[in-house]
């Protein structure tokens, strides 16, 4: 007997098949230490502090007063990060000594930040606070202290990839000092005779103009890298920080980003004629679209050319593509690493792997890739195990290749409109 007639139970969901959190961030900035006192635990340069909310930073002594008193923007970046990403998001903070340049901070503390976080960081924001009396030298339209940090930042990504904890880095592109036409093309940076393919490095030159206006000196030409970092932490690896529908970076209630500017401390309205150049050259900044309120990032470019080769392989040209690649690499490693040193049979007539074992390993790789496909983070993925891998002699390596098709982004919609007498 049942008086309900139709009984419907809620299905249960098992434990997550993946504990890989893909929005964990790090913030690397230079600034003075904070001496511990009552209610303040203090900050030691070079130490990594895990945060999940703004109050965690305040407990360390990183407050608005810290920023104001020291003419730095550490609290600013943290509050912007949490305004966009939401409280609860993990942020590992490392404050390098105040006298360190951006390049020095990256080279001397970047690896430490990743290691201390046990490799779980996906994105690192790098902020730079010039010392008092700072007089900038400009190179290729940006401060030389920023320009010289691009290659070391990519080197840090390279190291993170080689050590199986790949990250994307967002640099504070402070001190823009050039018109769009004369700006460095970040999609085509040369270092000597070589091209710098900074596939996982992005340069943020956008700033909340009203906030910067209240600052003095070098502070006015800062860039809101914390806002960019928080925006990325809010969304999936493959999604663009420039999504128009969902990622308005302005907040009327918090009086943030009500007027967008660039790091030359000019509003985007003043720089309107140059924005297309900066966009085409791979800079990231906040901008307004006609017909919609608020501000959005212009896109998610990286400092690398857009290349498609004869075999159909494409270069990493967006943050989304790079982060998708990073996540796929982490998932594949997690899936396949347990199989290292495992015992497998070989075909006694060839000494090679039997087809069934080849398919088994391909299935394992595909499981990892399919988890991203099912989450709409990839369009497709394929694992190919080389059946001629020699496991009885030589280096006994199982040769595997992975091909992934990323999701695409609609950069623009192009249409034509005409009047007609009839339809």
């Amino acid at each position, binding site marked *: 007997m049942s008086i309900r007639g139709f009984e419907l139970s809620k299905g249960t969901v098992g434990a997550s098949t993946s504990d890989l959190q893909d929005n964990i961030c790090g913030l690397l900035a230079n600034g003075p230490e904070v001496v511990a006192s009552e209610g303040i635990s203090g900050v030691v340069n070079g130490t990594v502090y895990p945060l999940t909310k703004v109050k965690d930073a305040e407990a360390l002594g990183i407050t608005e007063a810290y920023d104001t008193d020291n003419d730095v923007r550490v609290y600013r970046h943290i509050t912007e990060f949490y305004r966009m990403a939401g409280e609860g998001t993990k942020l590992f903070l490392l404050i390098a000594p105040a006298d360190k340049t951006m390049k020095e901070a990256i080279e001397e503390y970047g690896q430490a930040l990743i290691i201390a976080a046990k490799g779980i960081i996906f994105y690192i924001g790098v902020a730079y606070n010039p010392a008092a009396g700072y007089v900038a030298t*400009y190179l290729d*339209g940006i401060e030389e202290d920023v320009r010289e940090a691009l290659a070391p930042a990519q080197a840090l990504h390279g190291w993170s990839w080689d050590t199986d904890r790949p990250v994307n880095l967002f640099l504070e592109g402070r001190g823009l000092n050039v018109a769009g036409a004369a700006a460095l093309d970040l999609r085509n940076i040369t270092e000597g005779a070589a091209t710098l393919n900074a596939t996982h490095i992005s340069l943020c030159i956008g700033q909340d103009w009203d906030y910067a206006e209240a600052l003095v000196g070098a502070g006015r030409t800062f860039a809101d890298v914390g806002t960019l970092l928080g925006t990325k932490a809010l969304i999936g690896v493959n999604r663009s920080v420039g999504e128009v529908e969902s990622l308005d970076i302005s907040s009327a209630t918090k009086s943030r980003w009500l007027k967008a500017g660039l790091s030359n401390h000019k509003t985007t309205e003043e720089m309107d004629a140059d924005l297309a150049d900066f966009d085409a050259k791979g800079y990231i900044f906040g901008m307004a679209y006609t017909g919609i309120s608020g501000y959005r990032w212009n896109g998610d470019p990286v400092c690398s050319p857009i290349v498609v080769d004869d075999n159909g392989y494409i270069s990493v040209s967006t943050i989304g593509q790079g982060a998708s690649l990073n996540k796929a690499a982490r998932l594949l490693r997690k899936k396949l690493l347990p199989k290292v040193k495992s015992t497998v049979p070989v075909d006694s007539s060839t000494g090679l792997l039997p087809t069934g074992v080849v398919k088994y390993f391909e299935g394992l790789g595909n499981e990892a890739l399919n988890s991203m496909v099912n989450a709409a983070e990839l369009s497709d993925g394929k694992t190919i195990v080389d059946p001629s891998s020699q496991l009885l002699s030589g280096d006994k390596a199982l040769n595997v290749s992975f091909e992934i098709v990323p999701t695409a982004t609609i950069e623009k919609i192009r249409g034509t409109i005409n009047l007609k007498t009839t339809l």
Partner: protein
Amino acid sequence: MTTEAKSKDAAAQGAGETKTPNAPKIGGADAKASAKAKRELEIMTRHKVKTLYRNSKGEYFTSENLANLSESKKENVETITLADATKAAKA
């Protein structure tokens, strides 16, 4: 040191006069030029280039094209070679 400054300095010494209070500033200008050249050398080394371009605002570029685009007149762009900077840095 400019030609004019050099001749004034030489004339003052030749007449047996004591140096004017302005004299040390000439040495300061040399030191400033040397420091500038050293900075330019550092930039060239860091960015692996043998030539730098400086516009009238004192901003550097690794590309002549970008330097020209930052100016209304190409003549305002100064070309600094590695050899020039090395020589000036030693002066």
